[in-house]
Each structure stands twice: as C-alpha cells, then as structure tokens.
C-alpha cells in the first residue's frame, strides 16, 4: 500500500496534554507508515519541549465541552490536576508513553523536532532549557522551507 503523503509537518501551539498527544501520535504514526514527519513547537507548545515543564502538561477542564463538566466546576482547585491524573492513567493502560519518553521515541524514529525562534525569544528561553533531542531553533520561514517536496502536508494544532 503506498500513500501520496510523503511528509507531515506539524505546528504545535498549545500546551494542553490532549493537543501535545494529538501531534505526537500523528507524527509517530506517520513515521510508522514510512512517511517523514517534523514538529515545530511554538508559543505554548514550547512547554512540551521544556525540560522542567514537559512532564507537567495538563488537560483543559475549563472551556472544553468534551469534558462534560460545568465550566465553574472545572475551575475549582484540584479539578484540573485530578482530570489530568485520570487521563494519564487511561493513557498508561493503552501503553501510551509519557511526554518525555514519547519525544525520545519520536527523535529515535527520525521525526525532526524544532523550536520556534520567535516564541523562544519571547519566553526568554535558552537552548539548555529545551530537550536534548531538539534538532534546532528555526524561524517559520525556515520551517516552511522544510516542505521541500511534493506530498507535504502542514497541520496546525
């Protein structure tokens, strides 16, 4: 079975656990099908590649109708942490790796990981604040130039 998609380029702009996993599962799934994949982490998406923050991503309990929870309840202290804990437990049951291990898997699988230069500057981050597996810090223009062949798809998450 061959596919017309040759390369998947993802832009992850959010720090919620569900968005990070969406990007990671799709990027890994691409590699598993023999499709190239790369992820560009920008704005709050950078939390997923900051050494100190990546294991503390949370699920959004406020403003997320999928949680089926009154917005006021979602904002109460501890609710977000509890929902995150429950979600992580379910993920573990499905053998989904934690964020840090997932990034290692992606990097070993040949998925390129890039940080957005503008967002890195804005949050006053240094290279050493970011994971060792990172392939570099790019401008959006540099990232577009990675779409260098036919069959490239770009996805914003």
């Amino acid at each position, binding site marked *: *079975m061959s596919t017309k998609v040759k390369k998947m380029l993802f832009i992850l702009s959010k720090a919620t656990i569900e968005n990070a996993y969406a990007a990671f*599962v799709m990027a*890994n*799934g691409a*590699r*598993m*099908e*023999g499709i190239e994949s790369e992820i560009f982490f920008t704005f709050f998406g950078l939390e997923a590649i900051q050494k100190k923050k990546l294991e503390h991503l949370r699920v959004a309990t406020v403003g997320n109708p999928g949680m089926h929870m009154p917005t006021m309840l979602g904002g109460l202290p501890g609710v977000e942490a509890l929902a995150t804990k429950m979600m992580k437990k379910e993920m573990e049951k*499905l*053998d*989904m*790796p934690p964020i840090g*291990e997932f990034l*290692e*898997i992606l990097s*070993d*699988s*040949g998925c390129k990981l890039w940080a957005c230069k503008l967002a890195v500057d804005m949050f006053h981050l240094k290279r050493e604040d970011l994971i060792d597996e990172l392939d570099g810090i790019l401008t959006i223009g540099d990232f577009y130039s990675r779409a260098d062949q036919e069959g490239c798809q770009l996805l914003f998450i």
Partner: protein
Amino acid sequence: MKKIIANREIDVNEEGYLVEFTQWDREVCECIAGECNVVMTERHYEVVEYLQEKHKKEEPLSIRGIKKSGVVDIKEFYNLFPGGPLKISTKIAGIPKPKSCI
C-alpha cells in the same frame, strides 16, 4: 487468498500477511523480505524471532515495546526495516499487522 511464495502456495490476507503461521519458514521469510526490499541478516532474524515470541505470548506490539525490548533500539529498528518498520517486520515475521496507533 493464496499466494505463491518460495514456490509454495501460502495463505495470505489481502495485504499479504500470512494467515497461518505454521506455513512460515526462513525460505518464505526471505521471499517476503525481498518484496519489501529487505535483505535478511542474522540481526534481522533476531528481531523477527523477538516479534514472533511476543505474538505467541499474545502481547501487543508497539514502538514503545520495541524501545523496551532490549533486543533492538528504535533507530536500528528503522534502519533494519525502512519504510514503516513495524508493519514490514511483522509481515516478514509471518504474524498479523499490529492494530495499535502507537
């Protein structure tokens, strides 16, 4: 459906995966590998045997499992079976294609 592999009639599904593992041997294995542009080495067989062992124990296969296997790391796994390592290696190993998304 039936397919001629290594001059024998072998039962395969529509994607070419073996239906009956008892029909698998190294000859069949090397023919399927050839179709996938893989030239089998002893290293390939070590991985294939690991996959078959996991399948026998009915343990689901995933890329995370490969990382933890102690047999092969992810980088080498991608090098051994380029172009979709888990789906290609399981086809060569004569076991079903993993259904997991991870």
